[in-house]
């Protein structure tokens, strides 16, 4: 795919994000598009956000669970970039009015205290370089009509990033079993689903190692202080005005989030 087209699709996705509208799947229009092309489109989309005043604050890892990989027919994760405009503090309501067709996912977030520059990064390096982990919610959203995504569509659309909130509680991965830690998700006071850290690539640390190596090979920096959303440990949770979600990671604590307003779709 030539640079003009990459620019054109990156701009189109940025405009869709800005206007809270959707576009037809890219793969329908460009059947030859590769995952590499899709990352270049993503970089352009994110570049537009940075030009408009946002900062890159971290990364998200997607397509980490077996059901989602089976659904997309892709047996590796993908990543997107987190920007300063996506951040909510725990306790703030999440405004659905700023989103298009949001769904929530419960995850474990990592914050690094050292740079992780791949290739050659292992899960052991990830634990060594981690400052702390926290329970979090990622509110994914899609600029692709009706979420009709293939892997190229979601990668181009910044891995379907919406907004996110990190729980205030922090844990040390040397004191917490991040692989076996239970994930209990409640919606409006009722149990919604349960899972464990191993749902993410066998362990969330494996997903972060994959990210460090992938970013390294693409020449994208991965610095101390960045936030990493390591991948969903729950199914996609539909949310509407008034909903409240709580996710609790065994041995760590909870992240609580409330939603208000109406999304575009």
């Amino acid at each position, binding site marked *: 795919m030539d640079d003009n087209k990459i620019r054109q699709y990156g701009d189109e996705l940025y405009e869709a994000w800005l206007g809270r509208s959707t576009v037809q799947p890219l793969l329908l229009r460009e059947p030859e598009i590769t995952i590499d092309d899709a990352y270049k489109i993503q970089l352009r989309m994110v570049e537009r956000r940075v030009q408009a005043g946002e900062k890159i604050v971290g990364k998200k890892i997607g397509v980490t669970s077996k059901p989602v990989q089976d659904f997309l027919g892709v047996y590796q994760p993908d990543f997107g970039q987190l920007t300063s405009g996506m951040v909510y503090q725990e306790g703030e309501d999440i405004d659905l009015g700023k989103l298009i067709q949001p769904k929530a996912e419960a995850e474990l977030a990592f914050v690094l205290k050292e740079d992780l520059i791949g290739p050659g990064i292992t899960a052991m390096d990830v634990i060594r370089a981690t400052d702390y982990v926290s329970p979090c919610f990622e509110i994914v959203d899609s600029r692709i009509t009706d979420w009709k995504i293939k892997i190229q569509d979601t990668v181009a659309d910044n891995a379907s990033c919406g907004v996110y909130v990190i729980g205030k509680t922090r844990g040390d991965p040397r004191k917490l079993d991040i692989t076996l830690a239970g994930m*209990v998700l409640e919606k409006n006071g009722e149990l919604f689903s*349960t899972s*464990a850290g191993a*749902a993410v690539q066998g362990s969330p640390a494996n997903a972060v190692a994959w990210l460090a190596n992938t970013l390294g090979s693409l020449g994208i920096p991965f610095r101390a202080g960045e936030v990493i959303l390591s991948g969903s440990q729950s199914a996609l949770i539909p949310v509407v005005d008034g909903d409240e979600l709580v996710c609790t990671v065994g*041995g760590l604590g909870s992240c609580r989030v409330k939603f208000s307003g109406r999304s575009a779709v």
Partner: protein
Amino acid sequence: MSLDLTLSREDIVRLCERVEGAQRRAYAIPKLTDEYPAMTIADGYAVQAELRRRYLASGSRLVGWKAGLTSKAKMQQMGVHVPSIGFLMDDMWRPENSAIKTSDMVHPRVECEVAFVTNKTLKGPNCTRQDVLDATDYVLPAVEIIDSRFSGFKFDLPSVVADNGSSARYVAGGRARYPADIDLRTLGVVMEKNGEIIAMGASAAVLGHPAEAIAMLVNILTEQGEELAAGSFVMSGGITEAIPVKPGDSIVARFQELGSVSMRFVE
């Protein structure tokens, strides 16, 4: 739950013999309600009580009990709002890391559970989660091997209760813990078959908290004029879905804070 008995004493003994034959000689039978469509849950427990009497008479020792149908999804599927219970005998126990024969079962499946060992008598009605925790000596990880004796694992609640809640074998091990030292609600569990992750969950999947299932089990026992003796081993219900196993399969159940339980299956 209907407490009305519809079966005569003769019918109960007849159905019990049918279930016992299927359990001891490992063959599948049609669900009991095919022949007795009016059969109630109380009838099912009457058959189970007769089955227990026969096992005890043949020399088995009652080790404890198990709760079944403890997830919301399973209860909704069966149209009930209480779990079912079944008894556990010493000869159903298999040691950790042992080779378990499948030829004496019909179609075995495995599920991960948190097990409790008690040190005080527990009695209902109105037994609570806290009562259970106060009467718990320790908790430990367990794998239950269930084996419905009904063709195609197809049954209704009266039939499965009569079949002792599909109980077949159980393995417990890992690491014993005081319940006060861990958060029993958020324990993560990962089940691996032949080295591959096949099921995951957290202990809240069992009625919001596994001790809740034990409390309900005690209340059901009380309705039947029984109590839960001190020293009982009690399994609180599957956290993960039941996974079929066959000879050659190796299972490892890994529990947050409780270690792991392993076993393998042979012909």
